[in-house]
């Protein structure tokens, strides 16, 4: 145990003097959390939280345009302060412009399929508008037109009826509840665990770099000549980097609570079950350290360690829903993402932070991460055993 403590102290001292390594471990994920939380904040907003401008150009006259505009406004869609009254469409603003042809208002009272049906409406949309928003506005236009058509037909039938009575918005009250009761995930709730996981897996860099230096400089050979078991040398790396991962988790949660709102983003909602959060963090840490140990043992040079560790992490992050949320991926990519350990870790963090889940909800991701950690550690020992040569002797 005394030797293990000495190994941990050595690792701690070496890491604490590696400013670049510390920056990679702490500043990089914090910067990603702030930047990506702010950059993706609109993607995660739904309904009224997101403001989309629209305009109506009605060739039947400004009164009909005003009537349509008032009915279409709401739930995040609001009239552009610069209406395209002259029929000039801005390049990007407003994002949506409804063009109502001449005779549309008069034709509303005509039954569908008969001669004189309303001429086609045209919706001009900004190409960067999310498809879901375009679809929502389309449904909104159709709802408003339906209400106008029904009220016009009833008026023709001699029944006084206001179109408001047929507005789809008033057809029923529909409330949406999310699992866990915490509401839809905000950008910060997606990005804090995602980039925390990314940062945790980057312990591969200092672990493997120091290990390569130890082998190259002969310190590893010296330790082996002192009869220090190789398994103890590997364990000597686990303790300090486990503490580093815990510190990363604490600081990244703090960044989500303080740094992101300070820059104008939302505040991270903390989970009710801290014990489960600690469990997911620990399992993620073991998997990340196991990966670091395998890369360390397999790499013969610093360049190899940097490339294998860095590229491996970026690929796992890209596939695992760290860089791009999995829910925006096509189905085939979502299936592929299930192979990424970062996706397992993200599932665990989301179960605790977003869904306020229990132990059963994190059991599967934690089991997968622990199994991976054990497999990686075993692989590191096996690779070392296969080589049977610790020094670049001769």
């Amino acid at each position, binding site marked *: 145990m*005394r*030797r293990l*403590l*000495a*190994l941990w*102290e*050595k690792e701690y*001292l*070496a890491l604490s*003097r*590696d400013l670049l390594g510390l920056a990679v471990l702490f500043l990089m994920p914090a910067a990603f959390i702030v930047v990506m939380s702010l950059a993706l904040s609109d993607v995660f907003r739904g309904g009224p939280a997101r403001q989309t401008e629209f305009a109506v150009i009605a060739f039947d006259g400004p009164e009909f345009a005003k009537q349509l505009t008032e009915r279409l406004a709401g739930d995040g869609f609001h009239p552009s302060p610069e209406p395209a009254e002259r029929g000039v469409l801005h390049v990007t603003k407003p994002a949506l412009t409804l063009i109502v042809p001449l005779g549309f208002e008069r034709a509303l009272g005509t039954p569908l399929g008969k001669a004189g049906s309303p001429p086609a409406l045209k919706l001009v949309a900004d190409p960067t508008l999310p498809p879901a928003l375009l679809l929502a506005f389309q449904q909104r236009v159709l709802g408003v037109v339906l209400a106008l058509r029904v009220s016009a037909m009833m008026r023709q039938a001699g029944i006084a009826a206001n179109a408001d009575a047929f507005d789809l918005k008033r057809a029923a009250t529909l409330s949406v509840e999310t699992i866990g009761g915490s509401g839809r995930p905000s950008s910060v709730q997606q990005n804090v665990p995602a980039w925390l996981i990314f940062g945790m897996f980057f312990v591969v860099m200092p672990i493997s770099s120091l290990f390569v230096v130890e082998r*190259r*400089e*002969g*310190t590893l*050979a*010296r*330790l*082996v*000549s*002192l*009869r*220090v078991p190789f398994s103890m040398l590997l364990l000597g790396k686990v303790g300090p980097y486990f503490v580093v991962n815990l510190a990363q988790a604490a600081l990244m949660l703090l960044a989500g609570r303080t740094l992101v709102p300070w820059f104008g983003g939302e505040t991270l909602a903390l989970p009710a079950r801290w014990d489960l959060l600690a469990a997911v963090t620990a399992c993620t840490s073991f998997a990340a350290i196991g990966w670091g140990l395998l890369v360390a043992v397999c790499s013969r040079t610093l360049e190899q360690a940097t490339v294998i560790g860095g590229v491996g992490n970026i690929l796992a992050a890209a596939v695992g829903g760290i860089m791009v949320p999995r829910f925006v991926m096509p189905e085939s990519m979502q299936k592929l993402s299930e192979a990424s350990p970062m996706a397992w870790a993200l599932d665990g963090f989301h179960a605790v932070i977003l869904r306020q889940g229990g132990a059963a909800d994190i059991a599967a991701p934690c089991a997968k991460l622990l199994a991976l950690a054990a497999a990686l550690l075993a692989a590191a020992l096996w690779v070392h055993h296969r*080589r*049977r*040569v*610790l*020094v670049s*002797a*001769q």
Partner: protein
Amino acid sequence: MGTLNLDALSFRYPGRGENVLDKVTLAIPAGGIFGLLGPNGAGKTTLISILAGQLRGATGRISAGDEPLEALRRRRPHSLGLVPQEYAFYPMLTCAENLRFFGAMQGLAGARLRERVAAAAAFARVESVLGRRAGRLSGGLKRRLNLAIGLLGEPEILLLDEPTVGVDPQSRAFLLESIRSLAGAGRTIVYTSHYMEEVEAICDRVAIIDSGRVLVSGALSEVIRDDSDLEELFMQLTHRSLRD
């Protein structure tokens, strides 16, 4: 501890066809300095690595007195010390931190650890730089720190692999004097070097190996005959062709 005996020691790196050591048989008496000489690639460092327990898979037998070396090391884990040709310490740690770390790895703790760190630092004359980062030391100080680390456990067998490479004449003279004094304390010292004058100055016995085979071995006075010197003998035995 009696004589360190190597009996028909052979070794081949995995995946390579030829033996790096081929039936090496040597007798290294206690209380002296044994010079192990050979051109680059002769197998010196491989032999040192096998003695230090870094390389496995060698055939043959190594014994210390009547006891297999492995059994001695199981019984007294720190009976053997290694000073490798690399600066085998942590450059980002201070000299004191390096000494404490390697001392702790040899099972030393508390007052005993402090005592051994102080003694090794004093012996290698690095007391004045204990608080400095090891990576920022001069070449001579690095060599002395390397030696100090090797002496922390007071080993009975000390393996010195080219311990004077890259140092100035003052540091070399100091290191050679220190090594000579270590042998006087009854230790068995195996010393490899490319500097023949060093070997002639401090070694009692020598062996010249090449291509993994022992070409000559014995007391220095027996090996060098007539008016020739060690370098001349070395060149005669290993020839003048470049090795790397």
